[in-house]
């Protein structure tokens, strides 16, 4: 299965995402933000970093990059997309996911190993987990506070759109401890924590992050 990883100017974690795809057993495909060709990939990962310097707003300019037009178009047709950290910010700015990510409530960059509660184990990117499972992956952000209007948050909770929630402390003041959300069809998922940094015992706090990448491969086999 070909899984594209987009590099924007300012992406930092694209190499780790490529490595995570490979460790999970997928074929990583490097994609470049200025192209418009998705190179026949079966799924796309938007990695962490500071795309375009995060000038204007985090992810705002990247969301309007040429390749993102293709991602948005294909996502509406069911292409699975995973946005991690800056990638989550890009997906919200592109309108593929609801809400927005804003400056952390305490104004500090927060970098630590983070507990997460998996609430949806049936999206394209989370079938390797079980509902209610607690996992640990690194979180590292300065603008990771998930916000939306209260009525919108109520709607999202009602529709079960929260994929992962912070457990053991909220690192950035996110509304209702929300760490990640999904599109209505469960194909597009975004989260602030970094599963691609938790794929090997040598470098991560766990190998829990690998589950996101094995999930999408399992989805391809089942399809």
């Amino acid at each position, binding site marked *: 299965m070909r899984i594209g990883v987009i590099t924007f100017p300012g992406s930092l974690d694209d190499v780790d995402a490529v490595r995570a795809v490979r460790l999970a057993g997928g074929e990583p495909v490097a994609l470049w933000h200025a192209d418009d060709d998705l190179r026949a990939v079966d799924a796309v990962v938007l990695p962490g970093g500071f795309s375009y310097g995060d000038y*204007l*707003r985090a992810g*705002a300019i990247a969301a*309007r990059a040429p390749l993102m037009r293709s991602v948005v178009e294909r996502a509406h047709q069911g292409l699975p997309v995973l946005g991690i950290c800056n990638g989550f910010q890009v997906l*919200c*700015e592109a309108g593929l996911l*609801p*809400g*927005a990510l*804003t*400056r*952390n*409530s*305490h*104004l500090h960059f927060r970098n630590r190993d983070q507990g997460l509660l998996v609430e949806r184990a049936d999206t394209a990117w989370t079938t390797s987990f079980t509902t209610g499972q607690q996992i640990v992956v690194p979180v590292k952000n300065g603008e990771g506070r998930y*916000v*939306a*209007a*209260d009525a919108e948050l109520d709607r999202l909770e009602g529709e079960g759109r929260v994929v992962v929630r912070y457990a053991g402390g909220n690192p950035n*003041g996110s509304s209702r401890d929300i760490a990640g959300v999904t599109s209505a069809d469960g194909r597009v998922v975004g989260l602030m924590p970094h599963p691609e940094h938790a794929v090997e015992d040598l470098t991560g706090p766990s190998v829990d992050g690998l589950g996101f990448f094995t999930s999408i491969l399992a989805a391809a086999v089942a399809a």
Partner: protein
Amino acid sequence: MAVHQVVVDVVLKPEISDPQGQAVLGALGRLGHPGVRSVRQGKHFVLEVDGDPDEAELREIAETLLANPVIEDVELHLRND
């Protein structure tokens, strides 16, 4: 061709908390300005455009790129002098 200046002010919606504004408010208190009750921080864009400003186009620019309508409100000021 005449150049016109257009100003776009972007502020967080009232229901979205503004920790940056709150940090400024805290500093004002320490500087001896206890009478300032609230600070909301925003962005101020100055655009110079050729010819007569097209309000619809400028509103599109403001609402699709300069601001994120999910969390921010926009004020457009066309200056024709």
